[in-house]
């Protein structure tokens, strides 16, 4: 968490990243950029899922509908912040010639998406509607 706060500063201070180590092969930077964009799309898809729950499950009880939608929107926000944080960490590791950072986030996100999906199937099939 403390490292995350330190990284937030780096998002807006490109000079500090450029001061460290050497510039990696531009292709590595572009690959890192694509990974960042893939995570950003994941975040956007989760947010889109939040919108979709609200619109395509109108018969659901208010609490369930809003709860599921907010869970998906929240997961999207987390995913977006994590995307830029991981991008900065990878960029810095490449400049310093260190190993790329490992992360538990993909596994955690997988579990969260599975839980939300099961909740949605249960809610829709078992007819906890209206």
């Amino acid at each position, binding site marked *: 968490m403390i490292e995350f706060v330190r990284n937030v500063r*780096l*998002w*807006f*201070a*490109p000079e500090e*990243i450029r001061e460290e180590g050497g*510039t990696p092969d*531009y*292709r590595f*930077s*572009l*690959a*890192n*950029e*694509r990974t*960042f*964009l*893939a995570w*950003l*799309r994941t*975040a*956007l*898809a989760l*947010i*889109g899922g*939040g*919108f*979709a729950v*609200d*619109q395509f499950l109108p018969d659901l009880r208010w609490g369930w*509908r*809003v709860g599921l*939608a*907010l869970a998906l*929107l*929240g997961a*999207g*926000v987390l995913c*977006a*912040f994590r*995307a*830029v944080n991981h*991008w*900065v960490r990878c*960029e810095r590791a490449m400049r310093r010639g260190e190993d790329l950072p490992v992360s538990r986030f993909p596994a955690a996100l997988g579990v969260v998406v599975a839980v939300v999906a099961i909740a949605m199937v249960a809610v829709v099939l078992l007819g906890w509607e209206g």
Partner: protein
Amino acid sequence: MTPRRAAAARDPGLQPERTRLAWRRTTLTGAVIAVLAMKSALHGGAPASGIVAAALCAALWLGLLGLAHRRIGALASPRPAALAPRVAATAVLCTVALAVCGAALVV
């Protein structure tokens, strides 16, 4: 030296092109959200708050589109510079703002 320079001019792995398409896909995903926001605002009897949230979503999507457009322009050079952290952070903040608009529309 000539063949080597030709190879340097165009990456055989097409990395800049792939990155350009990744930006395009990202803006496309943003477009889906903007459309869903529009639908949500119009479907809910179009209250003023819904219209404002949908308009904000559209504006944020245009912001993402602008960022992508500038980055795609930069990627046209044979050896593009790395993505600026400010651009990455702005794209993420647009995404988060879209989620906030979504929360406003849902609740």
